């Protein structure tokens, strides 16, 4: 298992390098001159040309790519063109917020998705099942930005229960304060987190609930379930201890893959709820053609995604004794 983990971690290097090359290629293809954007509409052509030269944008692409890699292996992701700060500093400052949102959404999605899926499977064909699957259909088909605006309209504008936009203190600080007897900060942080996390979670919750339902239906028909029932075990115990445990295995790997979609959804959710994370930064960086920053963000997303999937694979092996990692 340790050897497997190390091998997977080493695989991050070629994957990261591949991501950098692909992103670099895409950035070469999309139109838009960062130097001209930096200087604005009113800048004369000579000034733009001079800035392009000083930024090294006129150098041949292989030289620029080589220079980027050379800096990267030294741990330097370059300077942001627009924020006059190192890319690594900017990303580090935003990563926590996005991870917090994505993890909250993932937990919420798993909780909602698994319970709905189980209930629907146990009452297959009943109105509960229909309702749960209607929810799943809605969740899959509703665009995240639209849901986000609806939630904001309902819970912040009309009911006034929750703040519309922004973020409270980071969850780590809030939890620490709560442990030391000051829960107000945690309540405040949670009140900011609820709406964006829910908006982000809906889609994943829907996908998970469908999958759990299908998987449960299959497992509930298995012989060992009948055996367990025949032995006289009560139904809830059979469902939770025997059926669900087996039904969750395929779901686990899907949850890992959904994390990628969650990061993508975070881009939209963050910009609507003014959540100061990487998603919002992505939009700003692309619209400004802040090339080093875009490169850095894509690389970060790729690494986070790969790490989450590694963790899922390890968990999979831990939960299912039939899986061996080599």
């Amino acid at each position, binding site marked *: 298992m340790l050897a497997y983990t190390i091998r997977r971690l080493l695989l991050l290097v070629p994957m990261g390098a591949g991501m950098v090359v692909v992103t670099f290629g895409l950035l070469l293809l*999309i*139109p*838009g*001159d*960062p130097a*001209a*954007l*930096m*200087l*604005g*509409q*009113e*800048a*004369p*052509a*000579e*000034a733009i040309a*001079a*800035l392009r030269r*000083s930024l090294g944008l006129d150098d041949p692409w292989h030289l620029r790519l080589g220079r980027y890699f050379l800096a990267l292996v030294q741990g330097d992701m370059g300077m942001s063109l*627009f*924020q*006059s*700060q190192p890319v690594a500093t*900017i990303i580090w*400052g*935003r990563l926590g917020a996005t991870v917090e949102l994505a993890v909250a959404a993932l937990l919420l999605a798993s909780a909602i998705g698994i319970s709905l899926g189980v209930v629907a499977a146990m009452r297959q064909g009943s109105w509960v099942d229909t309702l749960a699957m209607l929810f799943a259909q809605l969740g899959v088909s509703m665009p995240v*930005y639209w849901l*986000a*605006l609806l939630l*904001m*309209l309902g819970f*912040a*504008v009309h009911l*006034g229960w929750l*703040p*519309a*936009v*922004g*973020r409270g203190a980071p969850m780590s600080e809030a939890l620490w304060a709560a442990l030391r007897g000051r829960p107000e900060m945690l309540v405040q942080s949670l009140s900011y987190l609820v709406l964006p996390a829910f908006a982000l979670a809906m889609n994943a919750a829907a996908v998970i609930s469908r999958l759990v339902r299908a998987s449960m239906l299959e497992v509930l028909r298995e012989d060992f379930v009948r055996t367990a029932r025949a032995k006289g075990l009560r139904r809830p115990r059979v469902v939770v201890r025997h059926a669900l445990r087996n039904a969750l295995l395929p779901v686990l790997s899907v949850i890992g893959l959904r994390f990628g979609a969650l990061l993508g959804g975070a881009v939209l959710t963050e*910009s*609507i*709820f*003014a959540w*100061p*994370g990487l998603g*919002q*930064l992505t*939009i*700003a960086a692309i*619209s*400004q*053609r802040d090339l080093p920053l875009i490169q850095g963000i894509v690389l970060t997303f790729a690494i986070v995604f790969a790490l989450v999937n590694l963790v899922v694979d390890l968990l999979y092996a831990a939960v299912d004794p039939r899986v061996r990692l080599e």
Partner: protein
Amino acid sequence: MTTLSRLTGATALALLLGLSGPATAQTSPALTIGMDVDAGTLDPRLARDTTAFRTADLIYSGLVQLTPELQAVPELAESWEAPDATTLVFTLREGLTFSDGSPLTADDVVFTFKSILNPDFAAPMRALYAPIAAVEAVDARTVKFTLAAPYAPVLSYLDIGIVPKALVEAGHDLAANPVGAGPMRLVEWNRGAAIVLEPNPAYWGGAPAVGRLTLQIIANNNARAQALEAGDLDLIQSPLSPQDIARLAADSRFQNTIMPGLGVTYLNFNTRDPLLADPAMRRAFAMLVDQETIVNEIYQGVDAVATGVILPSSWAYSADISQPGFDPEGAAAAFEALGWRDSNGDGIRDRDGRKLAVTLATHTEDPNRVQTIEYLQAVMQQAGVEASVRLTDWPGFSTNYVQKSEHQIALLGWLNIVDPDRMLYGQLTTGGPLNWGGYSNAEVDAALTAGRTALDIPARTEAYRRAAAVLAEEVPYFIVSYQGYQMFAKADLPVKPTASPRGYLRGAIMAPAN
């Protein structure tokens, strides 16, 4: 002896803290304003986004301050004079200091402008200051500007913030840790989320009426409007979605200011394009622009129908000058006269076997512009013009298309037109750096040069009206609308905010007396 002096020191300190700390915080209210983008920098010389400009205007002060009516009034400079047409001498107020307590002198002013003029510094606004040939400190409170040629608009640009020379030269990073002599100073900048400011006790003009100002960044226009309705924000301003504007305007919880802004939305005709080289052809296209519908339906009446290249709020404006209005029959007649007829009955005009086809372009960030260009396409199609639409994001549209003169008809805008010169000289003089449509007319060149070098308002007015009349006839630019500026604020704010067409915020934090 020692004990006594220590005691006195402690008392003085306590008094000081007591007076300047909690007292102001209690009496002055906090204010939260929604902004659409995060600032890229808080160094006023490098500002390029609206939030950077608006925040820098609070943290720094310039030699002059522009009133909402765009008049330059004394700020750090208590007075100035022009001994001749190319010299301006400013006298600074006595005892000015930056927010860190260091004195602000003529050296700081000289340093600020020298760095802006230095090409290696890559200041986005350098072109505006290019006619300044020399800036020197006569003594600690006197600064002399020498211009290469008379340059009337310069005073409107001298509101840019003065930065502390000693600090910058010592390597201090103003972009992240600004130090200025404006009414506010930075408390905290949580990137992507909020910029928090508090009063700068060293400000020469006295304490602002707001004790704490939070500029909350909310990129999405709808979300920003909803945050105001939810009570998270006290004030929001343009850009806003027309649907939100209608809803907020009908809500008695909010006060609403709408005023002409300092921007225009216009069609840039590429006069080097064979199809559009003839002014008669450009006029025919211009007659197909239904400004009333665009302004009232798409912009919901926030913008106003434009009649020419000079803003109605400008001293140079004249109601007698007018570009072609919406006139589909006039356009049809003009196309016919130029030989464009529908000879094969396919609904599209043609001439010498070639179809009358044109590409309309704009950028996707602004849904109103996209709608406008699609509406134009429909009207043109009805008039027998095969109009295609090119939509890309702003970088692809501006830097890779219009600025490379690859367009035919492009819909875009100019902002911050504090002086007519700013939207005309670089843009429409022959070979001007921003003349992407390649327009050239000797009479316009002469008038625009006269407008920038004449020093009294009547002479400048006459020059700009001369240029505007020719431009209305030749339409290298067709001004679709004068942009409106809109502000919504809670009705019960302790300080009644005064709006400024640039969206600057001093009017929201200073008591009206200031």
